[in-house]
């Protein structure tokens, strides 16, 4: 879905033919910035409507069914829920824009303080995963394309079909069973990072969540690399290079690689976006203290300000990576 969406969007949003290259670049960027602001605003409305403006009493959801009416009134006042909806929304939006996400209902600490370490942990995990995913995908995609329809390629396609279809939590559970508990007991089955420590101070804890993220990511990205390599290898200039008798290595690395790389870059960005959504499952499975597991905890504890903040953050990050992918795709096309 992601790729075809991307290319389709890129085609639609192709800039009008312009003489200078700078104009060709400025138009898509300006257009995207504008739709970006509108979309982020839409997201804020969705998050607000789904949480604070929900029919039914938010205070009751937070406090549980056994709450007394004074408690409910008190909480309503604290959260500003007795104000008219529009002013509630404007207050909330103003706070979000100034980075003040309120206090956690469960712990009473500011949300921004609670989340900063979680965000850092999640970002670390994602960045390390991407460092492995991108080169591995390139190599695997290239090999599969070169040995197209041979045994290697078929084995690769079969494996990727299975991995793509298998939910992350299933892959994760099997990996834990294999390396953490049942077969080999070589790695810790949960990734508890003590608060205050940087994740890389505990490399053994990171291996399994990273392995799952890399496996899923490589499967997705390498398939796109494979297809773009096959396209390039079928193109006229590579055919010409083959006829000219250039060495295969020279053709692959000098001629095919740069051209096959271009469509893979936006795909990598899309993958980063999907990693954000996928992180919820993987972090929860390994009890990794990131933003995804924070969301699960916040929902379980009815911690409204935390839920709002995390979902806004995730949606915004997801959106930004998608837009980046889109933009990179358009730039490729216009080149």
């Amino acid at each position: 879905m992601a790729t075809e969406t991307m290319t389709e969007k890129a085609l639609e949003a192709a800039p009008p033919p312009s003489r200078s290259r700078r104009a060709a670049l400025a138009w898509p960027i300006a257009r995207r910035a504008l739709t970006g602001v509108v979309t982020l605003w839409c997201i804020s409305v969705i998050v607000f409507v789904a949480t604070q403006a929900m029919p039914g009493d938010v205070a009751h959801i937070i406090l549980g069914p056994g709450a007394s009416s004074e408690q409910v009134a008190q909480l309503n006042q604290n959260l500003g829920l007795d104000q008219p909806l529009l002013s509630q929304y404007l207050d909330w939006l103003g706070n979000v824009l100034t980075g003040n996400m309120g206090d956690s209902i469960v712990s009473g600490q500011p949300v921004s303080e609670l989340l900063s370490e979680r965000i850092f942990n999640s970002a670390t995990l994602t960045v390390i995963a991407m460092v492995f995913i991108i080169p591995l995908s390139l190599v695997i995609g290239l090999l599969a394309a070169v040995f197209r329809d041979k045994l290697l390629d078929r084995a690769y396609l079969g494996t990727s079909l299975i991995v793509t279809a298998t939910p992350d939590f299933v892959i994760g559970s099997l990996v834990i069973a294999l390396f953490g508990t049942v077969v080999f007991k070589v790695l810790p089955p949960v990734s508890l990072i003590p608060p205050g420590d940087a994740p890389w101070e505990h490399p053994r804890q990171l291996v399994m969540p990273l392995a799952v993220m890399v496996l899923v990511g490589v499967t997705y990205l390498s398939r796109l690399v494979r297809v773009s390599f096959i396209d390039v290898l079928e193109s006229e200039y590579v055919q010409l290079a083959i006829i000219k008798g250039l060495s295969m290595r020279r053709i692959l690395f000098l001629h095919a690689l740069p051209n096959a790389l271009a469509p893979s870059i936006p795909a990598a960005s899309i993958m980063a976006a999907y990693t954000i959504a996928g992180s919820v499952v993987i972090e929860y499975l390994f009890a990794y203290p990131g933003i995804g597991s924070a969301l699960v905890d916040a929902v379980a504890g009815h911690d409204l300000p935390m839920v709002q903040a995390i979902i806004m953050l995730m949606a915004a990050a997801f959106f930004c990576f998608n837009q980046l992918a889109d933009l990179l795709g358009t730039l490729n096309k216009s080149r």
Partner: protein
Amino acid sequence: MIRTRPREQGVQAPPRNLTRRILTSPRTRLGLIMLLVMILFSVLGPFFAPHSPTAVLAKPYADPGDGLLLGADSLGRDILSRILSGGANLTWMAIAATFGGVALGTAIGLIAAYAGGIVDTLLMRVVDVMLTFPTIIMAILFISMVGPSRLILVVLVAIGLTPGMARVMRGAARPVIRREHVMWARTIGLSSSRILMREVLPSVTSPLLVETGLRLMWSVVGLASLSFLGFGVQPPASDWGLMVSENKDGLAIQPLAVFIPAVCVALFTIGGNLFAEGAARVIGRTEGARS
């Protein structure tokens, strides 16, 4: 060599033998069989469960024996019975969500393609906004407020599937709208709904079929993942995704309580993917579009 690929205007085989054509691929057949087996297993399983899936019958993580063929789970319930009755909810919810999402997405896509102009632009903008919200995050957001009712889960997953479906179907329908038989139907003044149902829809059955297989896979993945996170089917009811998270702490003692439900989910989704990819390949080969 450069392979020339006939584009969309090319011959499109009549949809009547589409099913037969798709079933020539062993991959599609295998996928379909896996799907049917898993659906049958989920539907008939509860009737073969030797015990109640919610009754506590032994010590937590008890070994097989005492009439418990696979042993007991984290709370001492019969693993076999829980596995047999753990797919029913997932199956009906996934199928309902898939059909809801596919129907709504197809309707939006076809209407956008047919109407064009401002309607098209507006619908696609809405679809764009919806696409910026990952399904699982949206589902968690609403479930956190409304509570995990099964119907709401189905609706949320269906809504999550809709925008992608609308995009694909709009793309597939646009060239069809410009074909002669549709223009003829427009000229003689047939109603729009009739044209869409009788003239446009039959010409886009190939992508519809492939996309339905894919969405079924995503529905199962999404619903099972939500159950795993604790936002889906609620305990004490039995559900494969839930079983994995309930028993993951006892993985070292009772691995089967995690393994079997995990593999059940995987067989279901792999079946959906095999079907979709096999169908896409056959269609790509016979209709000349790139798969």
